[in-house]
C-alpha cells in the first residue's frame, strides 16, 4: 500500500500532481508535505491527476481540503482530474463532490480561466 507522487507543470504556470496507488491516513503524509510546499511557494494553481488512485479514505480527502483552503486563500485553485468511479463514490459519500471542481482531463482542468480576483493577502 503506497502512494506514488509525480510533480510536473503544464503551460508553465499550472502545477500538475499525478498520483497513483492508495490514498489513506498512512500514505498521504508525503502528499500533504508537497501540497504545503506548493502553497508556501505560491504555486497555487494546482491540478491533481487521480487516474492511478484506486482507493481514498477520509484522511486522503481531508488532505485535499486542506490544500484547497491554502490555494484559495492565495487566490489560486485546486482542481481534480480523471477520478475513477470507485474513488468518485467516496467523494459522493462524504458530499465532497459538492465542493471540488472535477474534470475529465488534466488539460481541461488547467484550461479553465483563473479567477479574476486577487487574494486580499
Amino acid at each position, binding site marked *: 500500500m503506497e502512494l506514488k507522487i509525480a510533480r510536473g507543470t503544464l503551460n508553465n504556470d499550472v502545477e500538475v500532481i499525478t498520483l497513483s496507488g492508495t490514498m489513506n491516513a498512512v500514505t498521504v503524509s508525503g502528499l500533504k508535505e508537497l501540497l504545503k510546499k506548493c502553497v508556501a511557494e505560491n504555486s497555487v494553481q494546482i491540478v491533481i491527476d487521480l487516474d492511478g488512485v484506486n482507493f481514498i479514505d477520509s484522511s486522503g480527502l481531508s488532505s485535499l481540503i486542506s490544500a484547497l*483552503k491554502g490555494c484559495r486563500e492565495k487566490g489560486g*485553485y485546486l482542481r481534480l482530474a480523471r477520478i475513477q468511479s470507485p474513488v468518485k463514490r467516496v467523494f459522493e459519500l462524504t458530499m465532497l463532490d*459538492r465542493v471540488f471542481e472535477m474534470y475529465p482531463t488534466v488539460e481541461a482542468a488547467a484550461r479553465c480561466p483563473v*479567477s479574476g*480576483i486577487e487574494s486580499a493577502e
Partner: protein
Amino acid sequence: MNNWNIAQTSQRFVSRRILFRFLAVITGILALIYIYWRCTASVNTKALWFSIPLLAAELYGIVDLVFFSMMIWKPVKRVPPLPEGEPTVDVFITTYNEGREILEPTARAAMDIRWANKTVYILDDGNRGDISALAEETGCRYLTRGAEWAGKPRHAKAGNVNNALMQTAGEYILILDTDQIPDPEILNRTIGYFNDPEVALVQTPQYFYNIPPGDPFGVDAPLFYGPIMQGKDGWNAAFFCGSNGILRREALMQAGLVRYVEATGMRLRANLKSLLRRLDKDRFLPLRAQIKEALHKLSKGEAFETVCDDIRSALGETVGLPDDMKEDLNITLREEAIPVQALSTLSITEDMASALYLHSRGWKSVYHPEILAQGLSPEDLGTMLTQRLRWAQGTIQVLRRENPLTLKGLTIPQRLMYFASIYSYFSGFFTVIILSAPVIYLFTNIAPVAAWSFDFFIRFIPFFVANKIMFRVVNRGIPLWRGEQYSVALFPVWIRAVVSVYANTKITFKVTPKQRQSGNFLPLVWPQMLFIAATGAGIVYQAIRLSLGAPLSITGFTINSIWGIYNILSLSVIVRAALYTGGAKK
C-alpha cells in the same frame, strides 16, 4: 471494585431487565394516577400563582421519570469480541496546564498498554518544555499546535485533538485526559468491538481513585456509568464522554468532512444572498443575474468551487465594485486554522456533540462497562462547580445548535435518549419551585394543593415509594442519596447554564484543575444557604404559632416540615462540600 462489570451472568442480567421493566411500569402507572389527580382535582384555584408553578414542576419530574424508564428499558450487557488482527492505534493524552506529576503516570501507563501497533502521543496545548522533555523520557511522541493556529479560534480540547488527527495515521484513537491512567488491557478489551465496521466509538467508564470517604463532591457516578450508559447502549445511543473512549479515525474524519461541506455550502449561499442584497439593482443588473444563476446552480447540485469561479470571473469583469464584496466569495473557512474539524467544535462538550453527529450519520456506538482507566476527581467545590457548569452549558449548547429532536438521521429512541440527557439540565428552575413551596406555606399558610387530605396521601405515597424502590433496584442497591442531593443542590449551576447559553453569553472551555484549590467556598453557595435558612425559619415560625394556639392545620405543618427538612438535607451536602478541607494536599 465495580459491581456492575461484565462478571454478571447472562441469566441474572435478563432477570434484572425484566425486573426493571416491571418496576418502571408500576412506577409509571402510579405516577400517572397521582399526576392526573393533581391536574384535575387538587389544584388550589384560590392561589394559582402558587399552585400552577408547583404543578409544572411536578409534571417536569414525571416526564424526567418517563425518560429514565425508557433509558433503563433495554440495557445491554456486552461481551467484548476478540480483536481481528492488531490494527494501528494512536493513544492521545490531552493536556493543557496540568503538571508533569499528573501526566507522568498516565504517559508511562499508556506506554505499557499491551498492544504492539500503538503510538502514544502527548497533545500538549500548553506548548511546555518540561512536557516535551517528559515525552522524550517516557518514549511518547510530542504534539503541539503549529503556526497555522496563530490568531485563529483554538476550540479547546476538540481543537487540540483535531490538530493531532491531521498529523497522525492510526486506525483507531484512544483519548485519555491527562490524569486518566489506563489499564494495560484497555485496547485488548475494546478493539474487538470494531470488528463490526459500523462501530465508530467504544466508551468505557470514568472512575476516580481519589474520592474521599463519603464522596463529599458527589463525583462518583455509578448510576451514569452503570444502568444509564448501558441503557443508552441498548438504544445505540451511548455517547462519547471525552476520555477513556476509543474512536474510529475514518468515522471521525468522515464526520468532519461532511460538516465541512455543510458549513461551506451554507456560507456560500448566505454570502451570495448578501451580495445580491447589497448590489444596486440598476447599476449591477448583469452581475445580479449571474448571482441568481449561481444560486440556482447550487440548488441543482453544482460544485461550490465551480460556482465560486463563475462568480469570481463575473466580479472581476464588473467595474466599480467595492473590494469587500470580493471577500464574500471566500468560503474556505479562512478564520479556521484547519478546515476539517473531525471532533465537533460547536459545543464546549465536544464529546457529546461528536457522538450525536456520528449517530446521525448512521454509525454505531458501544458502551463497555469495565473500568479500564482511573483518574482524579475534583477535590474542592470551586473546581467541581466549574466542571459541572461546563458540562451543563455544553449540553444545552448541543440542544441549541444541533437539536437531537430535529437532527436528520437519528432513530426516535436516539432522539429521546439525547434529549433526555439535555432535559435534565433544565431542572434548576423547577427545583426553585420545589424548594420555595414549603417556605411559602410555612410563612403564609397558602397551600399549593386544595387539601392535605387522605386523597393526597393515598396517591402520593405509593408513587413516592415505588419510585424510590425502582431507583434503588436499578442502581443495584447502591444508595443514590449523594446523587439525588446534588441534582437538587446544584440548581443555581443548572439555571446559570441555561441562562448563559440562551443569553448568548460568551462561553469558554474551562480546564478542570486536577489539584485541590484553596479558598473560602461559602460565597459560592449563598442561594442554597438562603433556602436552608428560610426553610428552617419557616418551620420554627409555624411551630411557635401552633404552640401559641393559632388555628393552623397540623397535617399541613407536618407535611411541609418533612418536605422542608428533606430539602434542607439535600442542600446541606453542598454547604458541607464548601467547608470541606480533608484530603487537602500540602
